[in-house]
């Protein structure tokens, strides 16, 4: 109301009132910040109308001087505020217009940033490693070119065992040695023997790595493949511990909803021995083509370390006991991801690599 009051007073004054009307119209007509600046200069610039008027009051009668001075300053204050207000409006509008002109097609594809992948087999090996690391295991490694002793003999495999034949095992010629008992390890189990030879119990280790068998490649065989071997040796390790450990592993790896079963089996280096199955996830256990109608999928072999293996490495089977297990990484990959052919893993076809 106060504002209104002084505006009425200004309007009542012929000169100031005219200036007010003129300024209001100019403000109204200013459609851009540049024009608005012209308006400011025209009224408030050093030679602007209002500035000149205010400079001119020096010569007026004291009362008139006070009245015109007061109203002139009020008008100046009003005009400054109005310019500010209008300026803000115009700048906003102008920025809006400018941003609108900068419109882009946001649906164009983003810049290609190259992304690579880890091999599925590496991923699975690391997943297995991490599960066992969580249970207190260390990861150990051993040579891929091995001696018969570590691959067979110290694992209690009799000299006449068929798996040692030239049709099952790759034998290797190393220049400079005349030995004929050098081979490509047929499993990662020899690492067990090497670790036990060099380390006293207790021992909780897994040994991932490549293994080789003289299989002609087909959908489920390749002459090179990957295994993860596990070994726990301590006082009072029981078959119950083996079951508990591998059940935990299988559920972590394949899902808590999976059933796990242990079937008696035979391996030369463990006794008792077992094969471990998980319930088939394709048919949910009712039987299908993938599980051969049994509802179960075999995932690994295991057992209690045979006392004669302990004998080879100088452990006393009366004082300690242990379990060992071994699993094929490719098989786990086939089961977990439904890859139809094991050979695909070694083609390194980018169209497959990119999927994982």
């Amino acid at each position, binding site marked *: 109301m106060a504002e209104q009051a002084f505006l009425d007073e200004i309007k009542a004054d012929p000169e100031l009132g005219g200036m007010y009307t003129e300024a209001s119209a100019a403000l109204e007509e200013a459609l851009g910040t540049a024009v608005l600046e012209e308006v400011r200069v025209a009224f408030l610039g050093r030679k602007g109308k209002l500035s000149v008027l205010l400079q001119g009051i020096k010569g007026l009668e004291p009362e008139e001087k006070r009245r015109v001075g007061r109203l002139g300053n009020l008008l100046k204050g009003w005009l400054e505020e109005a310019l500010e207000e209008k300026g803000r409006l115009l700048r906003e509008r102008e920025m809006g217009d400018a941003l609108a002109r900068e419109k882009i097609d946001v649906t*164009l594809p983003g810049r290609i940033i190259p992304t690579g992948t880890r091999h599925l087999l590496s991923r699975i090996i690391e997943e297995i490693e991490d599960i066992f690391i969580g249970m207190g295991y260390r990861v150990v490694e051993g040579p891929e070119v091995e001696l018969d002793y570590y691959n067979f003999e110290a694992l209690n495999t009799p000299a006449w065992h068929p798996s040692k034949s030239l*049709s099952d095992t790759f034998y290797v010629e*190393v220049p400079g040695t005349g030995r004929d008992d050098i081979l490509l390890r047929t499993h990662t189990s020899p690492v067990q023997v090497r670790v036990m030879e060099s380390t006293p119990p207790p021992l909780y280790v897994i040994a991932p790595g490549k293994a080789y068998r003289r299989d002609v490649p087909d959908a489920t065989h390749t002459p090179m493949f990957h295994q993860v071997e596990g070994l726990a040796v301590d006082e009072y390790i029981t078959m119950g511990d083996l079951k508990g450990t591998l059940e935990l592993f299988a559920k972590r790896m394949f899902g808590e909803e999976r059933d796990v079963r242990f079937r*008696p089996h*035979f391996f030369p280096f463990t006794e*008792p*021995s077992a094969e471990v199955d998980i319930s088939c996830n394709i048919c949910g256990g009712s039987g299908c083509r993938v599980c051969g109608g049994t509802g179960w999928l075999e995932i690994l072999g295991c057992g209690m370390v045979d*006392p004669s293996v302990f004998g080879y490495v100088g452990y006393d089977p009366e004082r300690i006991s242990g379990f060992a297990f071994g699993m094929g990484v490719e098989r786990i990959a086939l089961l977990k991801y439904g890859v139809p052919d094991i050979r695909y*893993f*070694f083609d390194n076809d980018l169209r497959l690599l990119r999927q994982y």
Partner: protein
Amino acid sequence: MRISLDWLQDYVDLTVEPEELAEMLTASGTAVEGIEHLGEEHEHFIVGHVLEVKSHPSADRLSLCRVDVGGEVADIVCGAPNVRAGIYSPVAPPGSRLPDGTVIKEAKIRGFASRGMLLSEMELGISEEAAGIMLLEGEPTAGTRLSDVLGMRDTVLDLEVTPNRPDCLCMLGVAREVAALTRQKTRYPVFALHEAGAPAAEEVKVEINDGALCSRYAARVIEGAKIGLSPWWMRRRLQSAGVRPISNVVDVTNYVMLELGQPLHAFDLDLVKQGHIIVRRAEDGEVMTTLDGVERKLTSGDLLICDPSGPVAMAGVMGGENTEVGGGTTRVLLESAHFDPANIMRTSRVHDLPSEASYRFERGVDPSGCVRAADRGAFLMQELADGVVRPGAVDARARVIDPVLLRIRNNRTARLIGIELASDETAAFLGSIDLEVIGTEETGDDTVLTVEVPTFRPDLEREIDLVEEVARLYGYDRIEPTLPRTSSNLGCLTPRQVKRREIAGVLSGMGLHEAVTLAFISPRWLEILDPAGVHLPMERVRLRNAISDEMSVMRPSLLPGLMEAVCFNLNRRVMDVHLFELGRVFLPYDGEDLPREPEKLGFALAGRWLPKQWDREAEDSGFFAAKGMLEALASSLHVQGLSLRRAKMPFLHPSQSCAVSIGGLDAGYLGLIHPGVAEKADLPPETAVMEIDLELLILAAQTASPYQDIPRFPSIQMDLAIVVGEGIDALEVEETIRGAGGELLREVRLFDLYRGEQLEAGQKSLAYSLSFYALDRTLRDEETRDAYDTIVTALDRKLGARLR
């Protein structure tokens, strides 16, 4: 091993359904891999009684039959020569389907209606017999289901018998398991021999010359045998086990093998000279022709069954052609022996001659069961071939294999398996599979049982073997899952393993795909890459029994595998290939039996690094992409002392290749594949590759570097553009700048390289951005100006460079 449940019932009652039985067997160690229901395809066939047969008026071979098919009489036209009134034969009524898929319809054959078909064994799909219709034995009721009359409905379990369980390679052994699982007793076959004539020992003499390889050789003599077809029940049983029926005498040998696990062999006794059997090793170079008509060259490793004139059988593997039982055979010598398992395995493998007999001998048959099996075989020949069994078995024993006595401590089972059993429970489990406890001894807090192990379980040799038997009979599923009471072990990766994972993570994060290639390569690759063995020495680790030449050398480098993977992708029109691999290579190691297996890191970049995009051009891979990749990897691992110097490698482009060193040690190479190599390998010429020693990289990768002050005062940037001769490498320029710039010069970055018309020929211009700062103050202009001047002077003096 295929187990017919119909047959199995001879020895044990089946008290559970086949599926449940399969689960029980699987859970006790004899895995059932499949359950097959037989006879379903024969459900629609019925018994027909041929009442009347007339010949067809206009077709000689056809007969018009009136056949009682149960409740009605059907007219059936039949072409079989053996059809006659009064016989019983299988009938396929209209609407039924033969095993070969033919659907039987009512039809008119040469003008006469025929309602169904009389069937031969071949048409029934049960044998090769097609000469006439099948004649059913006895007088079965017309119209009844054929499968009921022939006992065709059966369930067969396909067992996976582990190599340690030879006892389960026969019906009786499996029956023993089933009996134990269902708490019954096994029924052994009962039979009565009617021996007649002079004792067998007067006809046959057996001499074992190698007692190590043959502990026992028992023989029976059967005379007056009439060779013919075995009765239906026996043929059906053999077929259910996957064994082809041949003739009654041969079928009996197979039948007893399947029943008792003891392989038998029948010789035509008239063809065995003087009835004299000699068991001996072959002489090197000796030859014989086996039943399959193949002449075998033998060595002293092979055991033979001979007569005085030479070999008549390869012991335990296959009989000889010269003494084979044939249609004219009447006198049979029946062999039931025990051979050394390892020797039979060797012979069977060396001659690539696996047989049902060798399969059992090499796993171990029961040495105590020889005579019993011979008797059983003789009995069946007496019954089925009208043979007369001569009194007595000739039983030659080179040595006696006695039952083994084993001790099992009750606490041992508890400690290894984690189950608490009373000693009488243990004894009961063992007793259920005929392992008799013959002594019990209390020692302190333990009970020790002494167990007699029958000779049909050669796998049970140690206490642990008995512990396993107890565990599997107790049931693995009943063992409580627990976790080891671990003392205090810390599960972790080694620092090296952590770094290895990190390297793979960095590389894949930068856009490379991890490859896994085969560790054996073709020697052709080495010929292409390095024919003179300059970088990849000629001393190589080779496979002695490679599957193919393509996979015959253990890789001395990751390069061949990576190149092959690149080719694989290019051949499938995947043109931009960025691969890396972490893997071992194999290098012979002086003085060591095993090769060195250093782990390498390699990568290969082919095609474009980035394709053309809507707002930018394509970016090639090439040398500098590879170099940048390696530098970025080193930088992300905080590797100090990575350096690349010009070097020549036989397989790399001679002027676009480097040796890589880390901390002054030779680590590997980086460069473009030599165009000549690329051409031979079908690779694009611009393929860039790198391979370095992973160990060196990991050693140089700092796990944690000490804190360095972050500059608090502003840095000063200056640009420096110079012109130098083409012969001067950027590295020389940069080293000169750094050397002259003093400690305030913190960064030197090349941002432009120009060659062209504004410069004289043989000159190039390099532009660097220099960054100066001090940690304790704001630099004054003079300080940087002085440093800049020193740099310019040094560049001029050392390299003849001038400011541009």
